[in-house]
Each structure stands twice: as structure tokens, then as C-alpha cells.
């Protein structure tokens, strides 16, 4: 302690020595304010200068100017020593960064959001266009969207998948429509969209259908079967035009007519006024095609006049049509 006093005295004396050199005053007092010019004072307080006077700096009313901004100030040498050794909470670069981040925790940081965004993209295929907000929403939206349009291609490998192929390749399809008992008609068009119920949206539709029957004809109407349906289909393709698109007793008629049996034709003729007139019309066409007997022709002409009052076949064109799946019997893609 004595040494320190001596040292300080020495330094004081040194300073007092220097002081008189620069000034005319002889008094060895440290705080020389008025007599000195302002520059000197500033120099004394300035830490970096040669003329730094620590006592002056300590007792001056204003704090000495710091050479660097945000410089760390210590209260004594011991504190400085421990700081140098790297004690708890020393300002390593990483610690500084952590403290800064912690301080700015609440604030939405664009950089942080970017980092999160990148994470999101790596994890899942988010189909959301706007992906700006927090992570909790992402978890909800991460599942791929499932709606009627996305479900269409999912059907591949099943009959509906075949229908999807018709959508993709724009294949014309014929959709058989049902009445509650039997076939109503055929819609020919291009499928735009469909769903699992076979509800379909078609464009450029040509519908060929037959009016429903009433009364006796209805009663005698034979129930539609798959075989009859396809026979009707073959018949329709064979004859073309606006053939009636209804069921008929094709087997019986065709066999009968092919045999050219005179007896059978009268039978069938008598049966026909009471039977479904659609049958009669198909029978008529068959007669026209196959049987060339005069009897047949005669009968045909008679029948031709008969079935015009009810159960007529109509054709219409509709640009865009929606069909409820419940009414669909089958879908027949048209070969190109």
C-alpha cells in the first residue's frame, strides 16, 4: 500500500513536472481547470492520449469519452482479469449471438420464417400456395388435398379407372340409361368428370331414348336382362340410324324369322299388337332385313303403321349434360 502511494505520488510528481512545463502555474495540484486551455483538459481525459490523467478522469463531472462504442467497462482490475480468463457468461461470439436472439424472440423474424419454410418444403409436399405463417397450421395442411377431381385418377386399375382413361383420352362413350324397369336409352358423349357414384358430366351428347310404355304394353313388357341388353346393342349397331333403343325378344324373333316359318310369323304378328311396340319395331327391322317372304313384307307394312302412337323413339342433342349415377346401366367406350 505504501508502494502504491509512493507510485501514485511519483506519478503525481511526474505529472506535476510535466504540468509546469506546459503552463506557467507552479502549483502542483492535479485538478487544473481554469488556467489550462480547453484542449489540454480534453487530452487529459482522453484515454488514448499521452497526457491521460486518471485522477482527473475519475473526478471529472462528465464521463470520459469512450474510444469504442459499447465498450465493456470494469470497476477494477480484478474484474478485468476475470473477464480475460473467460468466466461464466463471457462474451464469446456464439454467446453474444444467443443473447441477441433471445432478446428478439417475440419478434417475427423473416430470416427465421425462411428457415422454417425450407424445413416445410423438405418434409412434405404442401399443396398450399400461401405458406407464410407458423408451423402449427402446416401440420394441418400437410395432408394432400382429396376432392372429386383428385379422386378421378386414383381409380386406376378398376372399372372407374377405365372411365378415367376415357376422360383423359377423350374417348366417346355410350352411356346406357335406365328407367326403373328396363332400359330407357343411350347417351353418346365425351366424359368431362365423374365420381364414385358414376355421376357423370358429359359434353356433346346425343341422346337416343324411348318414351315409356303405359298400360297393357307395359304389363307385357319383358324385364331387361344383360343378354337382351347386349343383343339390343348389337342390333342397334347392326341397323344403325334411329332404331328403337329398347329391349326386344330378339332371340325368339330372330330364330323364328330366320327359319322363315310361315306359321310362326302369323303367331308373332298376332302377338305383337299386345306386346311391346319396341319389340315390334325391332321385329319389323329384322323382318325387313332378313325375311323376304311376301307374307313377312305384308305383315311388316301392317306393323309399321301400328306402333306409332306410343313408345316412340326420340333423339336429341344436348351440349352439356349431368347424369346422376343411379340411372346409369353401363358405359361403353366407343372404339375409335
Amino acid at each position, binding site marked *: 500500500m505504501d508502494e502504491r502511494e509512493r507510485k501514485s505520488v511519483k506519478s503525481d510528481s511526474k505529472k506535476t513536472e510535466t504540468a509546469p512545463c506546459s503552463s506557467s502555474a507552479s502549483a502542483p495540484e492535479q485538478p487544473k481547470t481554469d488556467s489550462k486551455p480547453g484542449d489540454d483538459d480534453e487530452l487529459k481525459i482522453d484515454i488514448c492520449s499521452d497526457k491521460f490523467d486518471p485522477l482527473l478522469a475519475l473526478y471529472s463531472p462528465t464521463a470520459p469519452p469512450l474510444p469504442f462504442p459499447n465498450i465493456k467497462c470494469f470497476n477494477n482490475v480484478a474484474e478485468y482479469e476475470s473477464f480475460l480468463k473467460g468466466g461464466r457468461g463471457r462474451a464469446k461470439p456464439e454467446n453474444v449471438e444467443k443473447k441477441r436472439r433471445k432478446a428478439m424472440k417475440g419478434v417475427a423474424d423473416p430470416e427465421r420464417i425462411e428457415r422454417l419454410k425450407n424445413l416445410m418444403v423438405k418434409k412434405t409436399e404442401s399443396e398450399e400456395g400461401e405458406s407464410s405463417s407458423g408451423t402449427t397450421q402446416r401440420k394441418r395442411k400437410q395432408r394432400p388435398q382429396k376432392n*372429386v377431381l383428385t379422386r378421378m385418377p386414383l381409380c386406376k386399375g378398376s372399372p372407374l379407372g377405365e372411365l378415367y382413361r376415357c376422360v383423359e383420352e377423350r374417348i366417346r362413350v355410350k352411356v346406357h340409361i335406365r328407367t326403373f324397369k328396363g332400359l330407357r336409352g343411350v347417351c353418346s358423349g365425351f366424359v368431362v368428370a365423374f365420381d364414385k357414384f358414376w355421376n357423370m358430366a358429359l359434353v356433346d351428347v346425343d341422346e337416343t331414348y324411348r318414351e315409356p310404355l303405359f298400360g297393357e304394353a307395359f304389363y307385357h313388357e319383358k324385364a331387361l336382362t344383360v343378354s337382351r341388353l347386349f343383343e339390343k346393342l348389337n342390333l342397334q349397331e347392326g341397323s344403325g340410324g334411329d332404331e328403337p333403343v329398347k329391349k326386344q325378344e330378339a332371340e325368339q324373333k330372330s330364330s323364328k324369322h330366320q327359319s322363315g316359318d310361315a306359321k310362326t310369323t302369323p303367331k308373332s304378328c298376332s302377338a305383337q299388337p299386345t306386346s311391346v311396340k319396341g319389340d315390334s319395331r325391332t321385329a319389323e327391322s329384322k323382318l325387313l332385313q332378313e325375311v323376304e317372304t311376301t307374307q313377312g313384307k305384308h305383315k311388316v307394312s301392317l306393323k309399321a303403321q301400328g306402333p306409332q302412337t306410343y313408345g316412340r323413339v326420340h333423339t336429341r342433342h344436348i351440349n*352439356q349434360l349431368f347424369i346422376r349415377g343411379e*340411372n346409369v346401366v353401363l358405359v361403353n367406350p366407343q372404339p375409335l
Partner: protein
Amino acid sequence: MESEGAESSVPAPVEVFSSIRERTIAENSMVVLLQGLQGEVTTVDLRNESTARGRVISVDAFMNIRLADVLYRDRRDQLTRLQDLFVTGRNVRYVHIPDHVDIMKTIQNQLSKIHRVRNFASEGGGRKEFPKKTK
């Protein structure tokens, strides 16, 4: 349908369902196309061979259709004018889509509406935070 689960308390506009169940059914079927036709004048062919032509007020997930200002033609071609007609979904056979309607676009629009509403309802409490974060 009764409302279920997390719904928005705002009274639902005409386009939106009140129940999640109906929304899901509609979203996964072609009913969305018919819902996109709301407001259009169309012809609905019924299962009983009759037709109804009028403005579509609403279509629900089960294809029940409500029409207004309807010209109803029964199967004997007898015309009747009706102010309001409700058709059960099962009785629909065809719905004629007006020529000016784009099928794919309508479906996509309807799906995006449903999607938006669904997110709105589920984000209930957190809705306020959206504007801040997006800015």
C-alpha cells in the same frame, strides 16, 4: 343438416353448408358441379320422365334441388308454372348444364370455396394472427 363440431358463428352464406358431413360428401362427389350452377336457369329431367326448368336456388350434398320460377312439364307434356319446386335428389335423372358454364372451372371454384370455408372455421381463434404474420 344440423351443424356439427367447429363451425363459424357467422351466418352461413347461401353457397356454404352448415355441416361438415355435407361438406365432405359434396367435396368428394360431383354435387359440387351442381352447386356451382346455383343461380343459373337450367332444366332438370326427373326420374318420372317429367322436366322442370327454372333457376337453381340451392343444391345440397344429397342432390336435393330447390328451384324457383319453374316451368314444370309432366310426362304428358302438360305445362305448369310453379313459384318454388323442391326435387329430391334421388328423383333427378339429368341436369342440363347451360352452354356458357365451364364444367372444370365451376368444379374448381366450388372446391376452393369449400376449402376456404373449412380453414376459416378451423382457424377460429387464431384468425387474428393472420394479418400480422403475413405482413
